[in-house]
């Protein structure tokens, strides 16, 4: 067991979670039987699979999902067309009561999605009345088969505010608004949610995408009896998108409410990255769909050990800790430049570095066919680092800073004589340094 002095517990919307790791709303949180097992495995709370009011019958398309494999790496992403819960409301609420009775220390968050003010209010109230500690408003499913729901709401900011207000006027438990990533700037809808009274924001739901097209029948997958659709992509492939939106919202001074990070989390490192960029809880679906609830053990142990080694005792001390180092690109010091350096003792001679440097970078490598080794012409190295990405040997290629006096060689021009034949007038107009279109 990790050292006991480490405190992974965290306050979120007035509730104490014994660790920041939650199930997100999805098949992994579909029933109390499942959620109970997840709690036993170590998860601190659940956002239950989005409730339905029974007004409309929910039928999931079949098959529901398609996996996005990359080479031998399985499930880099998942494409799903699953709808909100297809269980009767009574069943879900009975499961709420069960969980609150048997797991009173774990946090139960009810995810809801309505089609009208009244329905949002109704679902909010039954959730609160049957033990939910919080609500999560699902403004973000990208593939509801019913018009006017899910991310259609999430893209119509006034609806976000209106539905949030309705819910807040109905219940007294905290309310989280779950955002769709299928927009450009998330701070805007988040602020609408805040104006409606939201206590926190969670993000992201799935990213609209197409993972694969069947080459036999030319139907995008999942293939629902001959028809494919743009639908929700999740998993490791979307982590960069999730991190970006969480960081944006964390840096938005007008927003300033707690964040729950979601998207592609599998390891304690993924979780910590969300936390360092401003999330105080994190949620997981695809990681569990791939590996099961057991991954939380390694999130707990890995994060605890990291904290012990860094001398950090409370997880809350890490929330947002990377934000001061996250700035816009205009803050870069372009006066400082570097190149790669090669530790060729470790080289196995595959030559992939040579290929990518030649075809996609600075032509800064020469290839000794006899010895099967690259050699670097430092002055031509762009420091794009492509070679280090493809190198199969860890730590063989590293970055090193060059003295300020050093200059990179210009890219080769094939035939300097052709300059005489160029047709151009030099651009001389004075102008601003930023785009004013």
């Amino acid at each position, binding site marked *: 067991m*990790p050292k006991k002095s480490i405190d992974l517990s965290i306050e979120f919307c007035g509730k104490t979670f014994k660790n920041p790791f939650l199930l997100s709303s999805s098949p992994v949180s579909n029933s109390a039987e499942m959620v109970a097992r997840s709690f036993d495995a170590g998860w601190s709370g659940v956002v239950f699979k989005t409730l339905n009011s029974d007004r409309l019958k929910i039928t999931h398309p079949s098959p529901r999902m398609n996996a996005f494999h990359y080479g031998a790496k399985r499930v880099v992403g998942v494409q799903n067309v699953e709808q909100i819960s297809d269980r009767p409301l009574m069943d879900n609420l009975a499961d709420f009561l069960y969980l609150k009775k048997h797991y009173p220390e774990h946090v139960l968050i009810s995810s809801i999605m309505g089609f009208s003010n009244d329905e949002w209010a109704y679902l909010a109230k039954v959730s609160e009345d049957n033990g939910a500690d919080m609500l999560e408003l699902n403004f973000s499913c990208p593939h509801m088969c019913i018009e006017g729901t899910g991310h259609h709401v999430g893209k119509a900011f006034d609806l976000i505010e209106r539905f949030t207000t309705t819910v807040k006027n109905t219940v007294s438990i905290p309310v989280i608004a779950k955002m769709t990533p299928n927009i450009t700037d998330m701070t805007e809808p988040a602020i609408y949610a805040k104006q409606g009274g939201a206590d926190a924001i969670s993000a992201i739901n799935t990213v609209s995408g197409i993972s694969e097209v069947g080459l036999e029948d030319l139907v995008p997958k999942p293939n629902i009896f001959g028809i494919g659709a743009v639908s929700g992509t999740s998993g490791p492939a979307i982590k960069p998108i999730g991190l970006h939106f969480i960081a944006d919202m964390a840096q938005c001074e007008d927003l300033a409410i707690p964040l729950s990070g979601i998207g592609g989390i599998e*390891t304690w*490192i993924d979780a910590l990255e969300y936390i360092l960029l401003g999330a105080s809880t994190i949620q997981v679906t695809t990681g569990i769909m791939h590996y099961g609830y057991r*991954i939380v053990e*390694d999130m707990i*142990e*890995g994060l605890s*050990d990291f904290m012990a*080694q860094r001398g950090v005792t409370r997880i809350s001390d890490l929330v947002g800790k990377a934000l001061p180092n996250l700035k816009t690109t205009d803050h870069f010091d372009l006066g400082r430049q570097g190149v790669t350096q090669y530790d060729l003792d470790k080289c196995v001679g595959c030559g992939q570095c040579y290929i990518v440097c030649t075809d996609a970078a600075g032509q800064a490598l020469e290839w000794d066919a006899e010895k099967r080794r690259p050699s670097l012409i430092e002055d031509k190295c762009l420091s794009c680092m492509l070679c280090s990405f493809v190198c199969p040997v*860890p730590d063989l290629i590293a970055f090193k800073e060059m003295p300020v006096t050093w200059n990179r060689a210009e890219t080769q021009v094939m035939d300097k004589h052709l300059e005489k034949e160029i047709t151009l007038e030099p651009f001389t107009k004075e102008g601003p340094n930023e785009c004013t279109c």
Partner: protein
Amino acid sequence: MSYADNFSKMQKGFDMGQAIAEADRCLLCHDAPCSKGCPADTDPASFIKKLRFRNVTGAIRTIKTNNILGGACGVLCPTAELCEKECSATGIGQPIAIGKIQRFLVEHAHETGFEVVEKKNQRSEKVAIVGSGPAGLSCAAELAREGFPVTVFEARGEPGGVLRYGVVSYRFDMDFLAAEMADIKKLGVEFKCGSSIDSQNKAEDLLKNSYQAVFLAPGLWDAVRLQEKKDIKGLYGSVAYLEALRDGQLDAFAGKIENKTVAVIGGGSVAMDCIGAAIRLGAKDVYLVYRRSYTQMPAEEDEKIEALNEGIHFLLLNQPIDYVLGDDGGLKGLKLVRTALGDVDASGRRSPVNIEGSEWVLPADLVIEAIGNKADDQSPAWYPQVKLNEKKLIQVDPDTGKTSMDGIFAGGDIVRGPALVVNAVQDGKVAALAIKAYLSQKSEE
């Protein structure tokens, strides 16, 4: 180049990249068969999963809390017969290299200084351990972790048992042993080396000398010999030969072996160490003499292949019957008789039957007998009240390591006969648990 260089270091293991790549191949099975295959419950399924999810420290913790000699086992376990045997990945290709991952993680802990092993509350009851081989070390570490003051009595100059004075150092080197020993010493275990518990009643008397419980793990350090005629110049038992190689006498042996013909008798792992050492000491020809056939040899498959590739001559279906001496009384050759395989014997293998009239002499300057280790002839006197079997092995309750005498426990090779490091580790753990229960019960009374 000194021959010592051939012995100083074992082969490099995995680095982080290789370990992660290998862990990535793991199928992360439900109800993982590998973990069931480990005799010491090291739980490979857990530590590989932890590595897979970048919980490197946790992976190390799993290994070291379950198996204090996790590094030694990673290097020395015949994994193809244990954890890797039932690996599900075999169904789609190769089993996961579990031993190598395990070794890497332990080496990584030593390199990064990550310390796992924590001590619990302090207990007052003192425990004595006889023998610092894997069984003694495992029991000592487990008890020290539980807070008991532990003293290990070791006859030889340094602790480690077979790990220190048996296995050839190119398979398990001093630095690796030292790093793993440091984990145990940090727990506060006291070592009394050069301190043999080998006179009348001495082991039992420990109970009278302020120790509340005793764990016996002296291993098997007498070589089984072919015949009484042992004091022949050029004839060695495997125990003495291997021990000498690990006790600073490499160069002396190189002088005797260089450019000579060496015959090693036996077909097990110990014989493999003996032939491997001989070839590394510059022998001209090394013969492995074995009375059955290739497939009946108890040595592991990869050891056998490696030996063949190192240029060892396998003389199968040959039974040694006598030594041929020169005028000076020194060894000149080994008299053999050819055998044929007969019916299946008690060991489940077809037994060798001598072919009459087929005797012949293999010229040899040195012969090393590696036909088995047994309990010290004198050992029954050390613990006269402890029940033994006809081979002088100590009889215990397998679930607790309890001997017939109250307060005395035993484990490792002295109980099982020649077994494995990982079995000895498990015996030490089991006995430690039982000793804890025994002492707790005693203090209640």
